[in-house]
């Protein structure tokens, strides 16, 4: 059973087609990595999946239920899909305490919470991402970049999603913090049985976290397959190019 199916999705901004007939599948409990250069349409896929942009064609299904378009069933299916944004500094309302930001997202779970239950659940979520639950009343300004990213992960988890879409979530972070966040994601996936669509332009990071990889360019998927297999024997020149461009410690980079 697939947690997320994106079926022949196309998105247009005006006359430009930014996502062109893309199909992706995230199997339950697995992670699909989506790599590609900026402007290749990766983030637009994420935005279309959660309903922030309307697709021009195609369908998004969560656990087999159509999540694109209007209607109650589609809206509910969309809530099972939560998004973590790239920039933890703009993804949290600076005037709202982090506890309130997380509490606001509880509505996506579709359950009704009493006041006490809400507080308890926010504390539980903060503990889940290894933050001190007593700091729920602080505003984002009191937290560092990595801590804020933990808060946005907690907010996404508040909706009790079956699929988490992580859109370049480590590219604004320091490398040491990046490692801690990646570890957290893997831990959460294991404990909560989450499925993930992990979007990044950093091939090393995608390789580390993904079971399968899809390579995107100019709005299309150019190559996809199981991680080890794809990286060991890429067939597309663009994938080779991407692999080639990853800087390796202590190895002099060839000039252009």
């Amino acid at each position, binding site marked *: 059973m697939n947690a997320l199916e994106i079926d022949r999705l196309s998105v247009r901004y005006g006359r430009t087609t930014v996502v062109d007939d893309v199909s992706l599948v995230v199997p339950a409990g697995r992670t699909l990595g989506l790599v590609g250069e900026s402007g290749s349409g990766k983030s637009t896929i994420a935005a279309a999946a959660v309903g922030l942009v309307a697709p021009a064609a195609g369908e998004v299904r969560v656990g087999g239920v159509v999540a694109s378009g209007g209607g109650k069933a589609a809206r509910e299916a969309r809530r099972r899909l939560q998004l973590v944004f790239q920039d933890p500094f703009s993804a949290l309302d600076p005037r709202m305490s982090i506890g309130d930001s997380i509490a606001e997202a509880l509505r996506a779970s579709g359950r009704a919470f009493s006041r006490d239950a809400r507080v308890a659940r926010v504390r539980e979520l903060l503990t889940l991402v290894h933050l001190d639950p007593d700091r729920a009343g602080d505003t984002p300004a009191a937290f560092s970049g990595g801590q804020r990213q933990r808060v946005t992960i907690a907010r996404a988890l508040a909706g009790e999603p079956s699929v988490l879409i992580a859109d370049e979530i480590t590219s604004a972070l320091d490398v*040491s913090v990046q490692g801690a966040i990646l570890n957290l994601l893997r831990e959460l996936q294991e404990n909560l049985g989450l499925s993930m669509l992990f979007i990044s332009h950093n091939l090393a990071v995608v390789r580390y976290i993904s079971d399968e990889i899809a390579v995107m360019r100019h709005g299309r998927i150019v190559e996809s397959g199981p991680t080890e297999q794809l990286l060991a024997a890429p067939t597309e020149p663009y994938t080779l190019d991407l692999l080639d461009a990853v800087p390796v410690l202590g190895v002099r980079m060839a000039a252009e």
Partner: protein
Amino acid sequence: MTWRSRLVSPAGIAAAVGVLLFLFLAIAGPALFVAAAETSNVPARLLPPSLAHPFGTDDLGRDIFARVLVAARVSLLLTLGATVVSTVGGIAYGLIAVILPRHVRRLATGFLDVLLAFPWLLMVLFFTVIWSASAMTAMFAIGIAGIPFMARLVYNLASSVSGRDYVRAARVVGVGPFGILVRHILPNIANPLFVNAAATASVTLLSFAGLSFLGLGVQAPEYDWGRLLQDGVTRIYVNPLAAIGPGIAVVLAGLVFTFVSETLADTRGGGRSAVARRALGAVAPTRRSGAAAIARPALAAGEPVAEIADLRVAFGTADGGEVERVRGVGLRILPGEVVGIVGESGSGKSLTAMALAGLLGADARITTSSHTFDGIDMTRPLTAADRSTLGVELGMVFQDPLTSLNPALTIGRQLTEVPEVHLKMPRAKAREHAAAALEAVGIADARRRLSQYPHQFSGGMRQRAMIGQALTGRPKLIIADEPTTALDVTVQRQVMGVLRRAQRDTGAAIVFISHDIALVSAFCDRVLVMKDGLIVEELDAQRLREDATHPYSRALIACLPDMTSDRTQPLPVIPPELAAAALAEEVGV
């Protein structure tokens, strides 16, 4: 800026004193002064100013000073009323316009633009004519006439906030349009809104005085400052204070409103933008006077192109203390050398490089025991010739070329600056020189590109253009501060290639700053690892993995996933006792 520090600022004190004074007048004024203000005393009519009557008396013998004090209540109430009408109306219109579907929204904003183009006074006159002249009419007329301005402001502020990720995040979890307005948009635009409302109030007050003066506002026997002004002006040659008195009241109240808006204004980030300005000024020098930079003699063998010793950089904190961000760093850059500085945010790596270039803002407290660039003593005040030399020989490439290239000037204007100003080339030659620099960084069709603006370039191209700008001089040192952090790996590789070629062609030294230790090692000769404002280790880039002995360097290397990381194991993280001070909490997983 905290509320406390805002209130003790000069504007804050003036605002507080003014508000208290006018509040007192509005509440107690009529009760205290009504006798003197409204009892006719015909024998004492039309008296000139005296101690008993500071502004004199009017044609019924009433004390004008007392009338000004009593009129404060009506004048201020009308002003506040009108301001509330425009603010509430503006917020309602602006916020509703933001959540309307696209086509309807166009109509709504188009209508606003039409209203904005309409002179407000004409609008007020229109309303007073259809509703007949009275104080209330004037209040609503002025208030309604102010709505388009406020609505436009609210609309602009709100649409910039509604594009933020936290608003999109709220939409993803299912918060409706109304909830987003109330919970996210309104609180985040409240501050500039209040500032503007307070500023509008002072304009409104003047409008009232104007309307009453024209006889369209408050009607006799009621009076406000405008009416008093109207009464007084007929006798301005006999008793000038009868008109000037109410005028002073209007000006004072207007000042208080302005001070209030000043105090409300959020000035956070001013320091940062000052730094940015300074940095920009150095990259694109606008000084048109001064001597041409003369080609300086080649450095003797072994002599560094730039050197700084025992550098310390501190900043003042909000509570009057000082925090030291660079704590004794020495740096010696030899000609043609490529030196990498690697460290996490807050390690002081950028500050060190900016200090080396002499580009830190006035808020940075810098101490060094020595600091030279190409033989210039940078610790002394620089002469015009020195500055010209710096402009020609020092190139800067920043992380975000969108903010470090001037968006209002063509690429050509920015690339001909150094040749024209510092190398004294004629315009045509400078343009050729700039085109050659763009070609050198691999931008095709360079001549046409020169007349384009930065926003017409892609991210990678802008970064090339910045490197090209450094090449338009005779660079001896290029400082590249996270130049590829915003770019993809493939574009990153191209930009690094361009930088490398630039270095080979010009023989310039490069200081390359990054948090990516793999990238630094792949590009540089020598790598400095910084942490908490100190250099903890200096390493040969090619032998980084083998030679690193400092536990922090080793941890930085270990925590970076590469194409050989074991996918079955959690990634190593920097142990808490090693983590940089600013990040201590971060990695305590």
